[in-house]
């Protein structure tokens, strides 16, 4: 019973940036296109961390935030990363509500300054600080990689470039860092 769709979502060729501009102007169809493009992979990432129904809740909050916050998007060229940032915040919020502080920790890298509560800021900075400290001593390669990947949320290629290391090496280091952080989280959860 759909009315004539001039932009069937699957065929919409607009770029993510164009879509966000349209969304900021109130275009619901653009939101749908963005949703179809990004919700699946967001769901995969979130599903690694939480149950399916929780993923659904977080996705809802995420795209609601996208709808409401489209005007505040500053052209970074990577809409996916922006949405993932929102998603992470929503997931962390979910984790805090459902008494899973370890998971909230896992979702480090929320860009400070987006959340309006200053008290949260301090707590988060501490969390980030502690986690980075667990990754390696100050100035060490591991800590620097951890900061770039988890705090600054940079893609692998960029980090490899910065550190002047092959992508494969960065990838395996990151893998080991994640394991270290996991152990660290588990210890924190116990205490």
């Amino acid at each position, binding site marked *: 019973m759909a009315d004539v769709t001039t932009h069937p979502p*699957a065929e919409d060729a607009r770029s*993510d940036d164009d879509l966000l501009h349209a969304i900021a102007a109130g275009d*619901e169809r653009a*939101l*749908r296109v963005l*949703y*179809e*493009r*990004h*919700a*699946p*992979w967001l*769901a*995969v*990432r979130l*599903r690694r961390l939480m149950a*399916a129904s929780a*993923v*659904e*809740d977080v*996705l*809802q909050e995420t*795209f*609601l935030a996208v*709808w409401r916050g489209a005007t505040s998007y500053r052209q970074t060229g990577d809409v*996916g990363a922006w949405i*993932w940032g929102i998603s992470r915040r929503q997931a962390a919020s979910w984790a805090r509500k459902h008494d899973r502080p370890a998971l909230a920790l896992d979702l480090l890298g929320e860009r400070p300054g987006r959340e309006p509560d200053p008290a949260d800021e301090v707590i988060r900075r501490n969390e980030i600080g502690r986690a980075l400290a667990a990754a390696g001593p100050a100035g060490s390669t591991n800590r620097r990689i951890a900061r770039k990947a988890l705090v600054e949320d940079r*893609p*692998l290629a960029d980090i490899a470039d910065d550190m002047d290391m092959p992508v494969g090496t960065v990838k395996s280091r990151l893998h080991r860092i994640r394991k270290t952080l996991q152990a660290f989280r588990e210890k924190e959860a116990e205490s």
Partner: protein
Amino acid sequence: MSEHPHLPPDVTEEELAMLDVNLERPWHGVMGEVWSRPVGPVERLARKAFGSAALARVLVVSPLMILAWIIASALVFALGVVVTQATEQPLIPLLAPALAAVGVAYAYGAGADVAFEISRTMPVSSRMILLVRMTVVFAICTVLGGVASLFAPAIGGVTALWLLPMVAISMLGLAVATLTGLPALGGGVALLVWSGIVMQPVLEARREDAAAPVDLGTVVSESALMDHAPLYLAATVVCGAIVMWNNGAFGRPQEDARWHWR
């Protein structure tokens, strides 16, 4: 989707294929929030007071449904203020019951008319809905009348006792409306009866003394209202029972509608 050009490097096609998340549900949740208006404080309070989100919504949308009546009443009261100041007859307490009766009949008709058949299949009883709508009419009428009274204080003071005839006459109109299925008739009968009540002492005074000044306010004087209070109360109770019975209370089976709208 077979191609996913927007996939980040860490997400594989296999993981997508195995995903057990319902992706339509969050979307509907988003659009539900986008398309709706947030619930206002009045409605939230009403939800707690009534213990029913449905009745709270009925309360909040009622003024919208009877907007025509609200505007008309405001105008009539305004006119009443002007005339009262000119003639010194206490029109406001006389107008209030009449306007309320019309409002109740109108609300009944508007509510019953629109989506009538569908409303009868709802688990929320139509009696409760009617009650909420009536309360809205009385509240608005009281407020409008109160405001009008500020500008046209009646001789002998205005008491809140005119609420009694207001409720009684409205109930009478509603009873007629539900029995006949004709809200307009209900409103008309109520107006007629009220006019009769108002004019009766005037006509009697005239009969005794042809030159007596017309004092429309006899019926709404404090003493008259106190004297007639039991009568008004009795009328309210009886008519209320008729309305309830006709709408299926006291075990009476719901009859088919004897009247059809448009």
